[in-house]
């Protein structure tokens, strides 16, 4: 058997919900433990990092705010890939991934907005400004809420999956707008200082805690995502069993 066939088999194995649940059962404890360790190290590093000479200790909010914002966008990107998986390859787990990622992404977006405004109050002197970056992230939050409402509005999971997938792909227009909003419109929010041409513009003593925290929250995202996908699969199985039981009871009566 050639290698490509073997990998193709692995991916199609994953499409089987029972195998996926078994794999998730095995992975989740390890991922959760790793998340805890990395987040603990990251928290220690961010409190050990030097204070900013202008912002003082409030700069530490950055160590959670920036990972939250990155994850809000990464989560939407993953949802868009899952939407492609539903529409193009009809992968049976893709819509489970989309549906269970949406609430997690909404929470990360809300946390990014909240931590940002807590930082903005002492630094900018206001909780909120209608700046391009803030507004586009707020729009992302609204899109998340719309998708969550849509996935829960329909009875039939397959139909809800297709509708949510189309809507997710349309909403993906917003992601590049968020990324480049600080470059296109010269607004209050500072421009990118980690991922940019010519290397990071941030001192290594602050960059490392940030990267460790970002890694920790990414691990947290994958742990939560696997857990909620598993829960969603169980929920669907229970629903199917209930329908079968009802049909059987009807046939007997």
């Amino acid at each position, binding site marked *: 058997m050639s290698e490509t066939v073997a990998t193709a088999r692995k991916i199609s194995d994953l499409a089987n919900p029972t195998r996926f649940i078994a794999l998730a059962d095995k992975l989740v404890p390890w991922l959760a433990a790793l998340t805890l360790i990395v987040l603990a190290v990251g928290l220690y590093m961010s409190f050990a990092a030097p204070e900013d000479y202008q912002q003082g200790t409030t700069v530490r909010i950055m160590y959670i705010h920036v990972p939250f914002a990155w994850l809000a966008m990464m989560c939407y990107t993953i949802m868009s890939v899952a939407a492609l998986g539903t*529409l193009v390859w009809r992968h049976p787990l893709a819509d489970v991934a989309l549906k269970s990622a949406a609430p997690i992404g909404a929470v990360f977006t809300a946390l990014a907005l909240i931590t940002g405004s807590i930082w903005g109050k002492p630094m900018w002197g206001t909780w909120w400004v209608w700046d391009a970056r803030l*507004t586009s992230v707020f*729009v992302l939050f*609204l*899109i998340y*809420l*719309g*998708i969550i*409402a*849509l996935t829960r*509005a*329909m009875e039939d999971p397959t*139909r809800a999956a*297709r*509708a949510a997938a*189309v*809507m997710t*792909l*349309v*909403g993906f*227009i*917003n992601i590049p*707008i968020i990324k480049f909003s600080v470059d296109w419109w010269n607004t209050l929010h500072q421009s990118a200082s980690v991922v940019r041409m010519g290397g990071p513009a941030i001192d290594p003593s602050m960059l490392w805690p940030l990267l460790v925290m970002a890694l920790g929250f990414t691990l947290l995202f994958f742990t939560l995502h696997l857990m909620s996908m598993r829960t969603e699969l169980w929920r669907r199985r229970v629903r199917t069993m209930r329908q079968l039981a009802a049909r059987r009871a009807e046939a007997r009566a």
Partner: protein
Amino acid sequence: MLALFVREVRLGVRAGGGALTGVLFFLAVIATVPFAIGPDLNLLARIGPAILWIGALLASLLGLDRLFQADREDGSLDLIILSTDRFSLVLAVITKCLAHWVTGVLPLVIAAPLLGVLLNMTPEGIGATTLTLLVGTPAITFIGAAGAAVAVALPRGGVLISVLILPLVIPVLIFGVSASYGAVAEPDPFLPPFLMLTALTLFLAVVGPVAAALSLRWASD
């Protein structure tokens, strides 16, 4: 496609004064604003373009849920989907959008100058706002078609369509209002935001119908 367009326009005009209801709603929204913020004519003149845009946006969201639902109820939506291939379904959606715009939204654009006078706007301001509404409102209808197609199977999809569509039409609102202000306030330019608005309409005219056709085809089987 022309036959479909004529049919849709006829249905839109004759079916229970849908267009008139939209205009009435627009009028009601505009009339509510002075009550809320006080009858200060200078203030009203300054925020006039924004009020007209918000009113038109809400009024054009109002009728979107009927875009596909009536056809779904009498079964003609299934006929349209079955009798067309993938590409002509997109064309059919565009035709339906244009017909919906002509019957439901164009009256709003025509009514806008009159309401602008009520808000004490200058003639240039009224002209610019009407022009931006004329160019910008098709974008709302086109992207609204995607929302209407997604929610077509829902019994009460109207509110959900608005929730899904509003985040996506915010750029249209931003550029429409800033172009209207550009024509009145001296330092702000008119042409750049107006061209951005035109580009947005053309972009959404592609994205909206394609997404709508996709989800209509999948919702039917």
